């Protein structure tokens, strides 16, 4: 998997619309009753849109956000010279140690405009090194020891729209470009998204005949559902594509991602209310021939993303659209002589006008690698998902736990909006301060006030991967919580106070 640089067989022709690696589910569609309203896609109280770009194959984090002042990096990558030369690295303001791969210059531009959040060392506990298993974990949002074929966003949609598919939305909930629908968009019982390639023929409506009580009958039902779905959503997509036939900026040519993103920009502008788009870019499995392959991929993605951002800015819709990148793992810190083998934690990017431009997290620690040479995770990828749901889509935890994510994950300050969950009227009196001392080694104190008589709040202390290690109730009149941390291993922890619908998240450090 080296020279392949294109989206999953995405038809490069004009209108993109209705084209999956999971096992698609069986679902049943009801007819929309005459005269009734379509379900509005407003259950999230948000008009926000996310473009998820999956870098399939395992993106090498160290040659993406490069620790270019760290001599250990150059030592680890010496064999075959699989490193980015210091003088070629693009510096990132605010950091004297981390810079971008030279082919990511368009992202540097956006970073300088405070539109890029880089979240360092993202992974999950007990990293799995199989492409397919690790992809399943990232797409399902489950723990590494849980086998789940549905996806976190699919389950979230299922929970949010319980009447689906008895009541249908006017526009698809989510769209994936290509011939397959990956498990991200698959719920426990229903496919919650549709795959879209090129659309030049809309099949007719199948009949509603009673089906044989055999496996053949079951599969026939599945095909009929696909046909109905195609019919249903094709029209709204074609309509949006017809309303807006041009882009505001020139996208790079010979760039399949750019072709896909330009089409997405047009249908968003054309009024489609879909809130999640997924595009896949293959080829990141750089065991071999890494430098040229990886540079070409970085260029492809960065060029396309910049054009898209400028386009939606020109359209004036940039405040409601963000881009997020995911990959099943980063790569081994040390070179194998021609490339790098499967690794663990790596940076993620979240890009857009609604993003807090910053680097979140510390530099990868190259002096303390795990196993065969893997970077320790600092943040769980589900903290990023939780931030997206909470801050971007303005969704409360009760709406996605435990359906989409198994438990609460401490959010990270990725978006400018913090969501409105905290502004709940009755419970808005709560005030939480930063813990002190911080960092701390034996005990630390968290100031707290504003809990009304007759109510109580819950306090949680959790590890960065979201495991709760301590909880207690906070009663009215308490002015602080003292936490004994003498038994905790050094590192970063989150403390969370939940009060009614409000929620406060802080981060504390344990040092010794």
């Amino acid at each position: 998997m080296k020279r392949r640089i294109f989206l999953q067989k995405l038809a490069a022709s004009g209108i993109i619309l209705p084209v999956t690696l999971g096992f698609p589910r069986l679902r049943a569609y009801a007819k929309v009753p005459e005269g009734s309203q379509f379900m509005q896609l407003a259950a999230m109280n948000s008009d926000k849109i996310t473009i998820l770009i999956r870098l399939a194959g395992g993106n090498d984090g160290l040659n993406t956000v490069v620790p270019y002042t760290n001599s250990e990096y150059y030592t680890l990558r010496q064999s075959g010279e699989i490193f980015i030369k210091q003088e070629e690295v693009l510096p990132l303001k605010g950091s004297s140690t981390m810079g971008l791969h030279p082919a990511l210059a368009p992202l540097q531009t956006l970073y300088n405009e405070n539109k890029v959040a880089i979240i360092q060392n993202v992974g999950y506990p007990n990293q799995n090194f199989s492409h397919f298993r690790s992809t399943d974990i990232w797409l399902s949002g489950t723990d590494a020891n849980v086998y789940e074929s549905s996806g976190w966003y699919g389950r979230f949609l299922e929970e949010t729209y319980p009447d689906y598919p008895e009541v249908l939305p006017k526009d698809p909930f989510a769209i994936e470009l290509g011939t397959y629908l990956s498990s991200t968009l698959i719920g426990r019982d229903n496919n919650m998204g549709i795959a879209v390639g090129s659309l030049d023929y809309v099949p007719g409506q199948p009949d509603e005949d009673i089906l044989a009580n055999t496996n053949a009958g079951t599969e026939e039902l599945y095909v009929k559902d696909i046909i109905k779905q195609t019919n249903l959503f094709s029209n709204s997509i074609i309509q949006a594509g017809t309303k807006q036939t041009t882009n505001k900026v020139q996208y790079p040519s010979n760039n399949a991602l750019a072709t896909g993103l330009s089409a997405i920009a047009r249908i968003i502008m054309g009024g489609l209310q879909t809130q999640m788009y997924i595009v896949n870019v293959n080829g990141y499995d750089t065991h071999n021939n890494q430098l040229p392959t990886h540079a070409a991929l970085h260029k492809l993605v960065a060029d396309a993303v910049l054009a898209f951002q400028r386009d939606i800015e020109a359209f004036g819709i940039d405040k409601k659209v963000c881009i997020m990148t995911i990959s099943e793992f980063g790569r081994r810190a040390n070179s194998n002589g021609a490339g790098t083998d499967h690794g663990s934690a790596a940076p993620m990017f979240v890009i857009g006008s609604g993003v807090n431009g910053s680097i979140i997290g510390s530099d990868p620690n190259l002096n303390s690698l795990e196993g065969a040479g893997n970077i320790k995770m600092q943040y769980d990828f589900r903290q990023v998902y939780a931030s997206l749901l909470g801050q971007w889509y303005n969704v409360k935890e009760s709406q996605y736990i435990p359906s989409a994510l198994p438990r609460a994950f401490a959010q990270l300050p990725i978006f400018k909006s913090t969501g409105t969950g905290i502004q709940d009227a009755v419970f808005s009196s709560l005030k939480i301060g930063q813990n002190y001392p911080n960092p701390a080694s034996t005990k630390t104190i968290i100031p707290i006030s504003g809990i009304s008589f007759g109510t109580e709040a819950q306090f949680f202390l959790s590890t960065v991967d979201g495991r709760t290690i301590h909880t207690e109730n906070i009663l009215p009149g308490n002015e602080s919580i003292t936490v004994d941390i003498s038994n905790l291993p050094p590192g970063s922890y989150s403390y969370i106070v939940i009060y009614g619908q409000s929620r406060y998240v802080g981060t504390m450090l344990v040092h010794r």
Partner: protein
Amino acid sequence: MLKFSMNRRSLLTLKKDIQNQHPIPLTQQGNPEHLQRTTAGLEQYTPSSLEPWNYERAAHLLRRASIAPKNSQILDAVTKGFESTIDMIFKTFSVDISEISPWCDEDPQIKPIAPKTVQDILDERIQRREIIGRWYLKVIGTSKISIQERMVSFWHNHFVSEFDVVDIPQWMYIQNQLFRKNCLGNFKTFVQDVTIDPAMLMYLDGYKNKKIGNNKQINENYARELMELFTCGVLDWNNNPNYTENDVLEAARSLSGWTISPSTHPDAIERTSRVGRSGLFLQSNWDSGSKTLMGKTGNWRYTDIISILFSERSDQIALYICEKIYKAFVYDIPDRVIIRALADEFKKDWEIKPMLMRLLKSAHFFDKVNLGAMYKNPIDYILGSLHMLNITHIPDFALNEMSRFNRDVYNRLISLGQSIFDPPNVKGWPGGRTWVSTSTISQRHKFMIDIINGTISFNKIKYYDFDPIVFAKSFPDPTNPRTLCTDICNAMLNTAPSKKEYQMLLDTMLDGAKEYEWTIDDPKFQADKRLKKFLIEVAKLAKYQLY
């Protein structure tokens, strides 16, 4: 609508009992809540008056075991009888390579030999890449009734290499022939051969996996996929891991030392071929240190670790492979009782043919529950439709000129998600329900409309030439619209249309005329137009996607 969902629900309740008896965790089964099971096992199917050897069963066997049989071939198999048809299916044959033979075995000249330039080599490679793809398509499209090409494509989707990565047409050809040679042979030998196959050495970086002196460049790519995808899989049936990360590393070290060079390389002590460019083992590139794989320590090479794998994980390998075979021939949701029985025999000697034969001759394979529930992949769909409709290809799979027909088929396969020689990743095409999506269903329907109406042409030459009258006349009684409708449905569909569907089809065929007015001989009646509309409706039925 109410009827529809009630029907689905009752279907679910019925299946619950069967599901509960199933010994495996639900998540591992795919989609078990809708599962129908049969008690029919691996005992041999014997034709009887209750379960006769008829068109339906012959079509079931030929469509799944062979690829895209013609109506005449299915009728022929009915006449021949069950045992003779099985014998025919398991006969292999050699394929015609005359159109590519001048160069398919040659050294692909990575560095050009004068007077050729680098550009010449690249141009030639791009052209030959398409020719190799179309050659393979022609081999499948013109194959006799045999399991050979079905198995070649099965192994291609198991021991995956992608043209996009390998890039050298000769190596994809050599690998394709390797699949043909081993397709019904010994699985352990097969794994050894694939491990040092040039395309595979290229695809999973085996050629870069080396240790020269103290310079260690151990590349884990092949070692990991050898265990994860090619033999035992990640987990056993109890969800215990089949190997550790250290096993991957130690296997990678044992696999080191192979490269791809002209076979004349003087230092090679083992090679895959004596001509052209070959997989070569160079002792000096091999990590000769002691390695420990699955508890076994020694100075291992590739054959050793494959032997260790096949002895230490024999049960897991047999179950993993038999499950994959089951899914390819019977149904996407595996029946673990059947798979366990197949695997227990398979692991004794790793012979593929007897295992396959046992499955395809079994009562389980022919049970009603397993008929018509598999998804046609794009090749089955496209070639199956063309063969069933007896559509003339213009020109017929020609290789020497750029055949527009062949190219159209080639491109259609891409738009349906099955680009010849280019699976999506090392795990291959996932198959099953994934073949039919909101994107591909419209492309599938459109293909049928194009071939039936003959709408695609270039310089007034049609790509597909279909004569519905000739087609109708290939059935016993084309003068009776009901009989004709029934016969065509039997041939084109694997499960009979419902009453409602049948009425809709018949109405489409008659198009307002009375049954007694039906004639195919009077041009004024325009039976050809009516038949075309009718055939498009047959192809648009959901069950046409299945076989």
